[in-house]
C-alpha cells in the first residue's frame, strides 16, 4: 500500500503563551533572530515565497531610525480564507510575530492592513491589541501596532499598493526596485509579511528552526495552511505538511470525480487530472498562497476561466496598459471564441497576449493572469471552444 502523504499539522492554531516567546526574543541579539529564521528556510506564505530570514536580514542592515513592520491581512486571492481564521483564532500570535520582526530589524511601529471585508474582526483585534500593548509595556518595549482597514480593492494586497493605501492614496503598485526593505511604507525600510508567515516565525522562535525543518521538502520546508473549497466534501481550513502531490491532495479532499484543481487562486495554475500524480504542491511544483479549488466533471472550465478573467478585469488597477487592456481583451476574446465569432486559432493569439502581459505588466497582478489563462486553455481547449 502507498503511504499517505497528506499529513495534518498543528502549529498555526496551537494555543501558546506568547509572553514566553516574547520574553525569549527580547533577550536575543537581532542578528541571532534573523539567523534562526534563515536557518528554518521559511518562505513567505503570501504567495511569492520569498525567504523570510533573508527579507529580515536585508531590513536589519538598513541604516534608518524609522522602520516599519507591516502585516499583510488583505487576503483577496479568490479561494483564500485562512488569514481570516488565523486572525480570528490566534490574533495574539500574529502580533507576537510582528514584535519578533520588529526586534530583528529595529522597528518601533507596525501596521496590520486588514481587508475591508473582514471589518467584523476589528473589535476582537482591538481587544487583543490592547493586551499585546500591555505586555509590551511590561517588557519595556516601545513597539506599537495599529490596524488599518482596506476598502475593497484586491490590488492592495500587492505590497507596494498596500503602502500607497496606508499612505492615503490610490492603491497603485510602485516600480521595483526599490524593494520594501529599502524603501517601503512612507519611504522607510519596511518588512511586510503575510499573516501566516508571521505566525510561523513565532513557532520557529519557540521550537527552533530544526523542529520546523523536520517537516516538508528541501524546497518547501514546514507546513502550510490550505484553504480548500469547490467540489469537495471537506471544504475548510487545513494545516498540512508541504511536499504532497496534487494526487495525494485529491485522494484526501476530492469527491471521487475531480477533473482539475486550481492551485493558488485566480493568479495560480490549473492542474488537470492527467498531471495530478507528477505535480507537487510547493515551491518545486505549483506554489500556492493556500488556495485550493477542486472542480469535478460537471463543471465547465470555460465558466471558471470566464469568472477569473472577469475578476482580473475588475481588479486591475488600470495603471499600466498591458494589464488594463490585456485583461479586457482576454475576456472579450474567450467570449468571442465561445460565441463562434472567432475561430479556435484565435485562442493561440490570446495565449500570446497573456505571455506578453507576463513580461510587460508592472506588477504581479498583470504578470500572473497568464498562469490561469495558459493552464486552463492548454488543458481544456475543447471546453473553451465548444
Amino acid at each position, binding site marked *: 500500500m502507498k503511504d499517505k502523504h497528506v499529513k495534518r499539522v498543528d502549529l498555526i492554531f496551537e494555543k501558546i503563551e506568547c509572553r514566553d516567546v516574547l520574553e525569549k526574543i527580547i533577550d536575543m541579539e537581532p542578528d541571532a533572530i534573523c539567523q534562526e529564521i534563515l536557518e528554518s528556510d521559511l518562505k513567505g506564505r503570501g504567495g511569492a515565497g520569498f525567504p523570510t530570514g533573508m527579507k529580515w536580514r536585508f531590513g536589519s542592515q538598513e541604516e534608518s531610525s524609522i522602520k516599519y513592520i507591516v502585516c499583510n491581512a488583505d*487576503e*483577496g*486571492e*479568490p*479561494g*483564500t*480564507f485562512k488569514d*481570516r481564521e488565523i486572525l480570528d483564532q490566534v490574533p495574539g500570535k500574529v502580533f507576537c510575530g510582528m514584535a519578533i520582526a520588529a526586534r530583528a530589524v529595529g522597528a518601533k511601529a507596525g501596521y496590520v492592513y486588514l*481587508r*475591508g*471585508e*473582514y*471589518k*467584523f474582526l476589528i473589535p476582537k483585534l482591538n481587544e487583543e491589541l490592547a493586551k499585546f500593548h500591555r505586555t509590551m509595556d511590561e517588557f519595556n518595549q516601545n513597539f506599537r501596532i495599529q490596524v*488599518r*482597514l*482596506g*476598502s*475593497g*480593492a*484586491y490590488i492592495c494586497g500587492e505590497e507596494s499598493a498596500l503602502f500607497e*493605501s*496606508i*499612505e*492615503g*492614496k*490610490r*492603491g*497603485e503598485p510602485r516600480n521595483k526596485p526599490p524593494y520594501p526593505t529599502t524603501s517601503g511604507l512612507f519611504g522607510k525600510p519596511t518588512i511586510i509579511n503575510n499573516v501566516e508567515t508571521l505566525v510561523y516565525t513565532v513557532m520557529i522562535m519557540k521550537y527552533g528552526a530544526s523542529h520546523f525543518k523536520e517537516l516538508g521538502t528541501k524546497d518547501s520546508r514546514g507546513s502550510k495552511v490550505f*484553504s*480548500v*473549497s*469547490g*467540489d469537495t466534501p471537506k*471544504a*475548510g*481550513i487545513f494545516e498540512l505538511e508541504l511536499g504532497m502531490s496534487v494526487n495525494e491532495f485529491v485522494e484526501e479532499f476530492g469527491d471521487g470525480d475531480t477533473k482539475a484543481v486550481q492551485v493558488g487562486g*485566480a493568479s495560480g495554475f490549473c492542474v488537470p487530472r492527467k498531471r495530478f500524480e507528477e505535480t507537487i504542491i510547493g515551491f518545486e511544483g505549483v506554489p500556492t498562497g493556500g488556495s485550493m*479549488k477542486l472542480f469535478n466533471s460537471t*463543471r465547465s472550465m470555460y*465558466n*471558471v476561466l470566464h*469568472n*477569473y478573467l*472577469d*475578476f482580473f478585469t*475588475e*481588479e486591475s*488597477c488600470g495603471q499600466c496598459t498591458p494589464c488594463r487592456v490585456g485583461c479586457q481583451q482576454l475576456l472579450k476574446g474567450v467570449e468571442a471564441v465561445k460565441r463562434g465569432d472567432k475561430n479556435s486559432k484565435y485562442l493561440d493569439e490570446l495565449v500570446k497576449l497573456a505571455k506578453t502581459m507576463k513580461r510587460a505588466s508592472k506588477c504581479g497582478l498583470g504578470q500572473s493572469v497568464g498562469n490561469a489563462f495558459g493552464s486552463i486553455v492548454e488543458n481544456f481547449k475543447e471546453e473553451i471552444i465548444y
Partner: protein
Amino acid sequence: METIIENELVRELANKHGRTRESLIPILQDLVVQYRFLSKKDMVDVARELDISAADVFGTATFYTFLDTEVRGKYIIRICKTISCAMKGKNEILSTIEDILKIKLGETSSDRKFSLLEANCIGWCHKAPAMLINDTPYTELTPEKVTEILREYIKIQ
C-alpha cells in the same frame, strides 16, 4: 465672498484621525459608515479640511469599491460572485433577493433602505454562497435562509 458652511462631521472626523494625507481614507471610511456613500459636498469639505485638492479626494475615493460615490441604501448587500459562490448557487440567491426587495442588481430601493451589489471573493468560499450586509458576513445561503435574514432587516425601522 464665498461663505463656507461648517461640516461638523467632517471636522470631527479630521480631529479624530488627523489632517495628514494618511488620515484621508479613515475619514472617508467613517463618512461611508455614516451615510453609506460619499457625496460631492462631503468630499470637497474633506479636501478643504485636509488642505488637499478635491480632485485628489475624488480620485482616491473612486479607486476603492467600498468608498462609494453613488447614493446607497442604509443596508448594502454585496453578494459574492467569485467562482466558488458562483458554483454553489449564487444566482439563485441573487434572484431571491431581487424578488423580495423588488430591486435589480446594482439598484437601491426607493426608500433608500437597501442596495443590492455584487462583490469579488469575500473570503468564505468554504461556506458558499456568501454575502455581506454592510460589515456582517452571511454564509451557506439558501433561498429560505436569505429570505429569513432579509425579513429581519426589513423589520428594522
